[in-house]
């Protein structure tokens, strides 16, 4: 069986809600049934076959070509299978995904991996603000799984993140790990201002010393045994993080204004 492929016919003027296009939702549907599914497109509903050319049959392996920043909610609540997007994605990429694999060859907009509870996400490009964060009104951001970003990420990475691992090979913006509840965020590049603002628990791994605000306190240099385990678990990942094996860090704890059990580990 060949991959179920959706090729966007023309660049849309309005945003498209792609949440129905997941493996579990399309399994055992014929091409005609898939084409007849209606997607929210701006303020109206449009059939899938009016927006995309459809080819292939394997709903477990979905490929989207000509992706763009208007395609929202790709992989929404997906419970398995694989989605590969070529060209870019809009907001809420992998929103609340539970299992499976989602890969993007391009850039994603805001709230990627928001509410993600499991599975893996690999973004070969940049991602907007609020990666792995909670949407307004939610109390928890990402709740599990793995996110790899090869490019840069915007502001508020991991805001209210509860569990899981986010690995960013590029730079991140301001308020990284703000109000973070738990989990692990690794950033190889630079980080913006107000890192760990309101951070409650969780671990932030950095390769460059950040600018710290007053309620993040230096706990000294340490050799932490868990880092060996962590890098060992990263060893098979398609990421630069797989090439490291370090366990010597400068440890900062905070945010003391919010319980102060979070940690920022800077490799030395």
């Amino acid at each position: 069986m060949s991959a179920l492929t959706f090729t966007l016919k023309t660049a849309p003027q309005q945003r498209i809600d792609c949440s129905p296009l997941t493996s579990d939702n399309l399994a055992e549907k014929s091409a005609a049934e898939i084409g007849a599914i209606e997607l929210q497109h701006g303020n109206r509903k449009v059939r899938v076959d009016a927006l995309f050319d459809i080819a292939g049959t394997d709903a477990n392996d979905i490929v989207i070509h000509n992706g763009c920043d208007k395609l929202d909610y790709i992989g929404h609540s997906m419970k398995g299978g694989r989605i590969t997007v070529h060209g870019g994605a809009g907001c809420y990429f992998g929103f609340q995904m539970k299992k499976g694999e989602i890969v993007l060859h391009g850039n994603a907009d805001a709230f990627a991996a928001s509410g993600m509870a499991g599975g893996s996400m690999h973004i070969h490009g940049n991602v907007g603000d609020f990666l792995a964060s909670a949407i307004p009104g939610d109390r928890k951001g990402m709740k599990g799984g793995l996110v790899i970003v090869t490019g840069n990420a915007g502001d508020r990475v991991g805001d209210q993140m509860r569990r899981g691992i986010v690995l960013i090979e590029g730079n991140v913006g301001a308020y990284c790990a703000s109000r973070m509840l738990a989990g692990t965020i690794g950033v190889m590049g630079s980080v913006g201002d107000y890192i760990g603002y309101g951070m409650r628990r969780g671990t932030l791994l950095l390769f460059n010393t950040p600018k710290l605000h007053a309620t993040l306190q230096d706990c000294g240099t340490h050799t932490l045994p868990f880092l060996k385990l962590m890098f060992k678990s990263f060893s098979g990942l398609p990421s630069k993080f797989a090439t490291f094996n370090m366990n010597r860090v400068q440890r900062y704890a905070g945010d003391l204004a919010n319980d102060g059990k979070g940690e920022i580990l800077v490799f030395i």
Partner: protein
Amino acid sequence: MIINGVAIDDTFAEAFGMRGTRVIITAQNLKWAYNAANAMTGFATSVIACGVEAGIERELEPSETPDGRPGVAVLMFAMGSAVLMKQLETRMGQCVLTCPTAAAFSGIEGGDRINLGKNLRFFGDGFQISKQFGGKRYWRVPVMDGEFLTEEKTGMVRAVGGGNFLVLAESQPQALAACEAAIEAMKKIPNVIMPFPGGVVRSGSKVGSKYKTLIASTNDAFCPTLKGITKTDLSPEIESVMEIVIDGLTDEDVRKATRAGIAAACELGAKNGIKRISAGNYGGKLGQFQFHLREIMA
């Protein structure tokens, strides 16, 4: 059956179903891994009074341990899951948590998942940190030497305890030499421990006693100094008897260890004073497993 002049009795060892678990203990170097493991497996010779039977299974190369440090594998057995879980937690808390640089990990992937470091985390008084990698949860507990790292759970499986054989010799030094040779050979067999001091027990017991408060007492039939005054199992030339008790994860493991041990003891042979190999049983009425010596050595 006679091997190298040593008579193999037509009898069997009677063993029981137990619950077993394995813990991998690592440390900065092997010396400190042993310090933790020796403490953890101390006072764990017999379930009669120790709660568990425990021992060091083998040394582990850094490449075999989760954190890439040298370590040892500890096996622990008990008659029931509740006792095993309680003893594991207690011994982890007092012997591994306390040992400088030591860390503890699950040594059995399958089986029922039981707490390894789950409750030890509370020693961290709120400063403990949980981390999940590769589907496993670990706890980082801040301690005075840095951090104590432990996996949250380990596996508990059905196991076999109480496999045994007796070495009957013309003198005490000869019996001990044969047992030492047997233990050296048996240590190479995976999934088993010999829980008594040095792997050898001299005070084999029988069920019951003339004293009402005791559930077990000396096995007078195998005590050489009582040959003339009890219903003895010993011939006149036997002056010393020692026993090796084996606990293993499966009956096949116990069988392999029994074979390796008896073969090593028999290698010394009759010329070194080793006269007989026997085994302890309860008439086959109590234990689930029977290890017939002649079948094993055939």
